[in-house]
């Protein structure tokens, strides 16, 4: 029996070891780093302990720009992508022929390398010496002026950015919403039909309340995901996001850690902790609101 007890732990050992070294220790360490003032990775020196790192980060114009960008992305992409996904899922569940085909097509962005497909978006929107790009030609056709969406004004870049983010996050939302909608008990619909309820009312009074847990789950994960946006921005605008004015908070963390502006893990840690304070607050608010409005 004694031997058996050890054996149970033995099975957990590899996982526990990896988790301790690469998850638990770093979590503690990040707080230590964040209080070591001005820690320089190259010289391994810091000049004291305190909250200077946080104040440095909060006064860094690049960080403020990153925060602004991230908030714009969150505010635009989360409601839009969730709303469109809901519309599409309701549409999908109301048809029979071609449904499988549509579902398969809609899922494709999930299995693509977002760094690679981002380049296609860049090509479609970029203004070059040879051509204004397909999207600009479309705008011209409707009588508009060409805009450089990749190296041009901030609003134009933000537009492509949000469009691409929505394109990337849609598959997951559509998948979850369609399975939620199709698992609603058909008896409710039949009862409503007997009563002659209008389709809009059916959606508002039956479908929406029944899928509200999934919807809130998607909104919460959507917020978290959007706050951690980074690689989609790299896909469109390259690795020097500060120069493009399109950096995100996570991007700022990595830039502080590595690359031409890197070598400052303590600033990176402070920025990461600020990010997660924001995310935790938003998630807490979301959970509070969803408790009030979820049907179950």
């Amino acid at each position: 029996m004694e031997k058996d007890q050890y054996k149970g732990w033995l099975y957990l050992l590899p996982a526990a070891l990896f988790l301790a070294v690469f998850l638990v220790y770093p979590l503690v360490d990040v707080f230590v780093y964040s209080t070591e003032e001005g820690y320089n990775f190259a010289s391994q020196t810091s000049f004291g302990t305190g909250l200077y790192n946080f104040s440095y980060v909060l006064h860094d114009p690049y960080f403020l720009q990153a925060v602004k960008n991230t908030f714009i992305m969150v505010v635009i992409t989360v409601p839009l992508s969730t709303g469109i996904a809901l519309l599409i899922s309701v549409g999908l569940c109301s048809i029979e022929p071609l449904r499988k085909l549509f579902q398969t097509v809609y899922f494709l962005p999930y299995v693509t390398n977002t760094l690679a497909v981002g380049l296609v978006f860049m090509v479609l929107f970029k203004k070059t010496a040879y051509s204004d790009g397909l999207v600009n030609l479309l705008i011209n056709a409707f009588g508009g002026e060409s805009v450089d969406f990749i190296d041009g004004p901030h609003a134009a870049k933000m537009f492509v950015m949000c469009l691409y983010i929505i394109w990337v996050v849609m598959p997951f939302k559509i998948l979850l919403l369609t399975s939620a909608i199709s698992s609603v008990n058909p008896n409710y619909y039949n009862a409503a039909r007997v009563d002659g309820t209008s389709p809009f009312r059916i959606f508002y009074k039956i479908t929406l309340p029944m899928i509200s847990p999934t919807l809130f789950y998607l909104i919460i994960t959507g917020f978290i995901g959007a706050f951690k946006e980074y690689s989609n921005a790299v896909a469109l605008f390259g690795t020097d996001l500060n120069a493009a004015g399109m950096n995100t908070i996570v991007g700022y963390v990595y830039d502080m850690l590595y690359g031409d502006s890197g070598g400052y893990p303590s600033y990176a840690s402070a920025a990461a902790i600020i990010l997660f304070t924001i995310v935790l607050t938003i998630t807490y608010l979301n959970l509070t609101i969803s408790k009030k409005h979820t049907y179950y």
Partner: protein
Amino acid sequence: MENTLEKNHKASAAVRKIITYTGLAVWALMVLFPFYWMILTSVKSYGEYNSEYVPKFYAASPTMQNYLDAFSTVPLGRYLLNTLVFTVITTAIMLVVVTLAAYGFARLSFPGKDLVFTCFLALMMIPNELVVITNFVTITNFHLRNSFTGLILPSVTSVFYIYLLKESFSQVPDALYYAAKVDGTSDLRYLWKVMIPICRPTLITVGILKVIECWNSYIWPRLITDEQAYFLVSNGIQEIRENGFGRENIPAMMAAVVVISVPLLVLFLCFREKIMAGVSRGGTKG
């Protein structure tokens, strides 16, 4: 009266159908268009592409030259091979680690098990962005940058997959375990001969999800590698974009994009049901 009502109803149903299909088709087009455009551009020659001020929706003289360029001018083959090695090894090690842990939690009993399991679950809440900073420093201090070991080590465990597998293992009836015990089967042998075959669907799902994650991973590989010899496809394509084919050879770049995208698309079309079911159970990215 009755008749017109029914007619009206039928007409409005038809209109609704048309609107629904149009809306669905528009989004399908939005999804497919970038794929169409990358394939189209990749078969246009450099001269043809740059001479079209208004890009054509077909290639006048399709060429495979861009694909040859993609493999010869930049080390795309190297990137693909690296990614394949990284993906296979990471997924394999992860499956072993995760299976052992899940089995420990599901079948074996030892003191403190529940407490440890709760702690494991709590670890799920730790965001990657917080721990990556120290992991970067750890790997650098171990001199493991620009090595497969450094790339692979931090991503071989996943609490979430342990949880998924544990749930699956727990559904296997206890009676089988006791029967095997009476027969003198060892725990490890029982895991291998009974549990794994029964829970194969979950294992495959976990494996596929991990493969997708590995193939698309960008941030960690970028932090940990700066020698091209160790670049994965995501970093490779970034490198190609920034100083790849020179003079903005968009068609060759698109050929590289196609080559990078194809493996996962093929995997998806082969395991469509499995992947979609798996993602709805355990996917993120949204």
